[in-house]
């Protein structure tokens, strides 16, 4: 008691301390915080970079690589990436009469030989008629020794010569000559001749294709370079890189806009239904259940026809409309669930108590609180929309030729998968990469935006 020494100075208020009130970090809004979490996720950032690259590929790409996606390069049909593109100038084609035969020594018992150097204009074969007078000629792109097949039967021939002009491409062909008996049965003693075919072009054709100027002096045998196709060409000689860029525009347009549109529709429907509740909610949700049960494919056809689009024409808009009309119930259900939950929250009651109107409560409190879920839904719907486009184009119900889309290109590529795998592989790879990127971004967004779902996977 006696030790207490209190002076009036002890009862003075303390000087305000700066340190207590100081804000050590800037205040973060919800979105800034979400962005911070997202940018710490390397997988999400990598996928964001990938998506940026893909968008640039389809939007800026065509400006940099100015090749018409529907222009056909008839000299280079179905070539793979990095194929040889030299071409030799040759005399214009004149039909062959056997008097012009040059004598090339043959070392097989039928005397099968090339009468002239083989090129893409024609392969001229001659043989010696001994024993049987009738022969059958086969052609194969693979060696008959290893595959056991002679290939395509070209002709049954009485004369000892033949000029092959059937769809010749540069490369090696294996011609097999089989002697026939009088009644057309194949005899023994078949002879196979491997022939290297070189790509040639006449001067007139070269001028026509813009390889040389009409006034240029070129000699026969001179070599020129054909147009460059970095990723090869498809079965009609169209540039793959240009087609992938234009096709990506269609695929990504549908992939991004369809989810944006039907999620928006679903958000409006779901929030109205969830907010009104009761019998209205029940009726609206039953209707959503019916729409879910509608068969998607059938309505795709209907929309195609209603838009006045025939079987061969492109149906980007009908596809978009069909996806919007048929796919909104899933986000609507999700948002309705969220709204039902939020409706009972304390802050909503508080806002109402303070006189917030319905529109204010929904717009200021309810929708922003479901925004994370909505954004995540959109991101996860993008891959499924891209898959749907690809699937529909694949079965011929979506984007039709000549408009390219990645799905339609896969559909075309699958037909020649064994001989020209690049036609299938490139669009398939781009679809897979896009879907992968949006899936990873969706995972990252979910972790960053939605505290409740965090770490769920």
């Amino acid at each position: 008691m006696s030790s207490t020494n209190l002076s009036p100075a002890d009862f003075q208020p303390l000087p305000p301390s700066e340190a207590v009130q100081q804000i050590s970090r800037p205040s973060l809004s919800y979105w800034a915080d979400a962005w911070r979490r997202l940018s710490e996720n390397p997988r999400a950032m990598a996928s964001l970079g990938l998506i940026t690259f893909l968008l640039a590929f389809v939007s800026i790409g065509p400006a940099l690589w100015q090749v018409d996606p529907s222009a056909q390069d008839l000299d280079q049909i179905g070539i793979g990436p990095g194929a040889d593109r030299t071409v030799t100038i040759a005399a214009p084609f004149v039909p062959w009469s056997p008097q012009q035969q040059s004598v090339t020594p043959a070392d097989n018992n039928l005397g099968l030989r090339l009468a002239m150097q083989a090129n893409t204009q024609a392969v001229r074969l001659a043989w010696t008629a001994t024993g049987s007078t009738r022969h059958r000629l086969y052609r194969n792109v693979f060696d008959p020794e290893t595959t056991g097949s002679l290939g395509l039967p070209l002709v049954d021939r009485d004369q000892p010569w033949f000029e092959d002009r059937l769809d010749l491409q540069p490369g090696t062909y294996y011609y097999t000559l089989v002697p026939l008996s009088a009644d057309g049965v194949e005899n023994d003693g078949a002879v196979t001749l491997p022939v290297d075919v070189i790509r040639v072009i006449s001067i007139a054709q070269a001028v026509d294709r813009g390889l040389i100027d009409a006034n240029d002096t070129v000699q026969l045998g001179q070599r020129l370079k054909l147009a460059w196709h970095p990723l090869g060409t498809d079965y009609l000689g169209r540039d793959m890189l240009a087609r992938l860029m234009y096709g990506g525009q269609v695929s990504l347009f549908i992939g991004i806009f369809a989810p944006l549109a039907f999620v928006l529709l679903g958000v409006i429907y779901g929030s109205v239904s969830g907010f009104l509740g009761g019998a209205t909610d029940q009726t609206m949700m039953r209707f959503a259940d019916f729409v879910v049960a509608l068969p998607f494919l059938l309505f795709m056809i209907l929309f195609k026809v209603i838009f006045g689009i025939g079987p061969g024409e492109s149906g980007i808009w009908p596809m978009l409309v069909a996806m919007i009309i048929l796919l909104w119930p899933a986000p609507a259900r999700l948002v309705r669930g969220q709204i039902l939950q939020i409706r009972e929250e304390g802050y909503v009651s508080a806002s109402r108590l303070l006189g917030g109107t319905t529109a204010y409560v929904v717009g200021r409190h309810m929708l922003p609180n479901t925004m994370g879920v909505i954004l995540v839904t959109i991101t996860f719907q993008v891959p499924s929309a891209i898959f749907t486009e690809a699937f529909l184009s694949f079965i011929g119900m979506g984007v039709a030729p000549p408009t390219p889309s990645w799905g339609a290109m896969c559909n075309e590529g699958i037909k020649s998968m064994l001989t020209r795998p690049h036609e299938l592989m490139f669009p398939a790879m781009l679809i897979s990469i896009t879907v992968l990127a949006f899936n990873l971004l969706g995972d990252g967004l979910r972790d960053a935006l939605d505290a409740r779902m965090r770490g769920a996977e």
Partner: protein
Amino acid sequence: MLKYFAKRLLLGLVTIWFIASATFFGMHAVPGDPLAGDKAMTPQIRANLEAKYGLDQPLGTQYLIYLGNIAQGDFGISYTQENRRVNDIIREHFPISATLGILAIVFAGLGGVLWGALTALYRNQWPDVVIMFAVILGISVPSFVVAAISQWSLVGLNLAAGTTVLPIGGWGSIWHMLVPALVLGLSTMAYLTRLMRSSMLEVVGTDYIRTAKAKGVPPTQIFSRHQLRNAILPVITVLGPAIAGITTGGFVVEIVFAIPGLGRYFVQAIQQLDYTVIMGTTVFYGAFLVFMVILVDLFYGLIDPRVRVDQ
């Protein structure tokens, strides 16, 4: 419980009626008519054909006839394949699709549960990393590409072996089914694996697992009796929608592997605008899916007593 399912069943029937009506009026809104083929026909023949197919009746009457026929399970006659009833087409080809689908569901279910449990057991170790990488691939690659690549690999395998190890297409023995069913189930399997993994990880942290551990239950028994059985529940809920996914995915697999299933006929009918086949198949598929979802819900209520379906 019984009342709930009676209600669900009734709602299912209403849904089927909705599908049937939407299909009917949708198909009739399409300009052109099924008889406008490339064959020239006299007005007399045309009138006869219209009378045969009931096309000379007013739309309302046609709709009632159509609903009556569907109620009796009669889907009519194909326009492009003459004298072939849609019912016969479904009866002939649906069992093939169903066999393929069931096999795919079995692959997807078993694979999903197995891989998902493995990833959860070895969380963040190499089996987890490898399997989850495969899962991401399985989700990202379109089914027609998987189908094409697997068929391509089969060709390579058969060439390398010098004999037909596995057929590359067609239908017949169990060997024809293996690869297509695997391809068909692949994306569902990937999805189920993800679901199973997160569900397993959720279960690990629950009180009853801790209690079991505290009681001294051996780890293998905790895994099989407590962890696995509880973690499987969410996997079963998505089986209903998964069946729907597998039916549509079936179209592609049936086309690529040349399997004479209903999906292939459906796509063919679409391309030929064979109205009755499209309508019949659509209503059939719709009804099938509606009942599948109800069945899965019923099953779910049976195995999980916590789910009180009557609420």
